[in-house]
């Protein structure tokens, strides 16, 4: 037991993208990577996803931007970011040396803006692919507008697909009635993979002042509190689409990650849990490996979608 030869296979494939393990750092919780360098070895991660990027820099929403909630937190950052030009000039030199694949999360106000930023980034060396944010709850344009409408999702994704040939992962919102049509629309539009869920729209109120705690009034809920919702939606989406699904939402331990994979996720993203423990991603990688060894499972990918419901599986072949 435990010899290198018997180590289970941890590498996964998200369509054309090969990762050495299935644990990614989620956008918005990991800055531009450099913030955590020196604290953890970035090269151990499956991949890291940078903070949502737009063509022009954005100042973001007025503070307060955070509110702690039961087993979670609300944030309303307003997609503050340095803009694509500074990103390429100031952030990419570090990211090229990060030692793990770098995915860049992008958003825009119009289909054309999405396509334009994707084009700009596709010419940059050192970017393994793009994650398309169509689901930030704190922004009208580039957010809820696209996320809930299958037609709009298809349009924006296919527009980006026409513009670039690189790996495209589309990040879906949980703030929709039915996730399946949206997931199918993204797939049809040309996504290589889906990631879900983004944060759930929420709110917190100071009863002494009767004012919202967040400057933006509403914000996105993340943390352990949202894990059951994420699991359910990943399970639903993974059954509907043929492309890989990446699970995100409340993952803070190997057990959480394994639940997501069993539900149908080919890989997972760790988000807010980084705030409590920068090392959490590495611990999850170790924990998954230990689980596979203990269970005698030779390949992490064989876990994906292995949920036993006792009902006829409606899953299509992979």
């Amino acid at each position, binding site marked *: 037991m435990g010899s290198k030869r018997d180590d289970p296979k941890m590498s996964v494939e998200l369509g054309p993208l090969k990762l050495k393990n299935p644990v990614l750092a989620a956008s*918005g*919780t*990991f*800055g531009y990577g450099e*913030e*955590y*360098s*020196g*604290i953890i070895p970035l090269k151990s991660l499956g991949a890291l996803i940078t*903070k949502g990027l737009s063509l022009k820099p954005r*100042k*973001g929403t*007025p*503070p*307060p*931007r*955070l*509110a*702690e*909630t*039961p*087993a*979670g*937190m609300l*944030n309303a*950052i307003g997609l*503050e970011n340095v803009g694509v030009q500074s990103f390429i000039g100031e952030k990419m030199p570090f990211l090229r040396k990060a030692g793990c694949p770098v995915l860049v999360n992008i958003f825009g106000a119009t289909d054309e803006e999405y396509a334009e930023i994707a084009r700009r980034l596709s010419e940059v060396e050192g970017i393994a692919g793009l994650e398309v944010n169509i689901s930030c709850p704190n922004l009208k344009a580039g957010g809820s507008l696209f996320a809930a409408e299958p037609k709009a999702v298809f349009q924006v994704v296919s527009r980006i697909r026409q513009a670039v040939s690189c790996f495209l992962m589309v990040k879906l919102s949980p703030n929709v009635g039915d996730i399946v049509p949206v997931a199918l629309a993204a797939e049809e539009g040309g996504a290589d993979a889906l990631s879900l869920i983004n944060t759930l729209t929420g709110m917190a109120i100071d009863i002494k002042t009767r004012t919202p705690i967040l400057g933006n009034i509403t914000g996105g809920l993340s*943390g*352990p509190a949202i894990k059951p919702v994420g699991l359910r939606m990943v399970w639903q989406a993974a059954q509907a689409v043929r492309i890989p699904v990446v699970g995100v939402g409340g993952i*803070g331990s190997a057990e959480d990650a394994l639940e997501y994979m069993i539900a149908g996720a080919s890989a997972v993203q760790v988000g*807010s849990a*980084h*705030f*409590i*423990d*920068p*090392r959490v991603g590495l611990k999850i990688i170790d924990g998954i490996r230990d689980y596979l060894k203990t269970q005698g499972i030779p390949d992490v990918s064989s876990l994906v979608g292995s949920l036993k419901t006792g009902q006829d599986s409606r899953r299509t072949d992979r």
Partner: protein
Amino acid sequence: MNLPPREVKAKILLHRRIGPDYFRLQLACPEIARQARPGQFLMLHITDLKDPFLRRPFSFSRIFRPLEVKKKPLDEGGVEICYQTVGRGTRLMTQLPEGQRVDLLGPLGNGFRPEEQCARVILVGGGIGVPPLLSWAQELRKKGSGKKRSAKASEASPELIFLMGAKSKEKTIGVGECRKWGIEVQVATEDGSLGMKGMVTDLLGRELMTGQHGATALYACGPNAMLVQVAQVAEQFDLPCQVLLESRMACGVGACLGCMVKLREEREPTPLSALSNQDSCPGEAAEERESREGAISMISGTPPFRYARVCKEGPVFDARKIFWD
């Protein structure tokens, strides 16, 4: 350039109540103590359970550098923080027993900077804002500030005065410690139970109005209303003033952009009040400047600003750069 912060499991060496809702926590952490500077902070993980979810930021009230001769546990190196119980997280913290280990990440942030060539340093602390200034007071004192408050005070050893404000006597922190270190302390309490009856900013006004002093530098930490007043006084007397800000934080390392403070945009001469005192901008007529400022104000309602991370660019900021709402 800061060294990267360290993640440590630190043993709680001392945990005491020091006021009605104030607590003092001393932690064994040589790795942090070695590189920590006054004005920096750490993130403390209260519980392994997932609720409360986030770590809490606390500034250092004392830094105990590792000593050559180790007679007691703290000689190995450690830090002290003081906190007030304000919510569920800090109430839970009070339950942490001495001897238990807690996860720390630190030191984080920029810390206080010494001001060059000042003849007098005044620290202004209010309530739970006093402790973060204690470590700075101690360091300044060690470096020779406040040696003698006399006419002979030379440039090499500036005067050092700590003005402390609190609601009442039992809510003062560190008065005895500072005096033991040989630092001049003046206290203001709102109920008059210790020192002058009034606010710490009254003490500051009195201190600045009386006597002849050379260049004075201010350092402040406390409630926002107090900081706003200190910043106004600093502007009025044209004194350098560094303030340590408090903010809700998630990551503490600059990644989440959650703890932002509004700063005046440096490229533009934003403060309208400052404009009249300012030397004329080269190549720009006063009228033009006025009309531009007016135009900016009309369009946006506010002068230009940018957001900065309290955890990374701060928590210590030049008071004059802060956009006090």
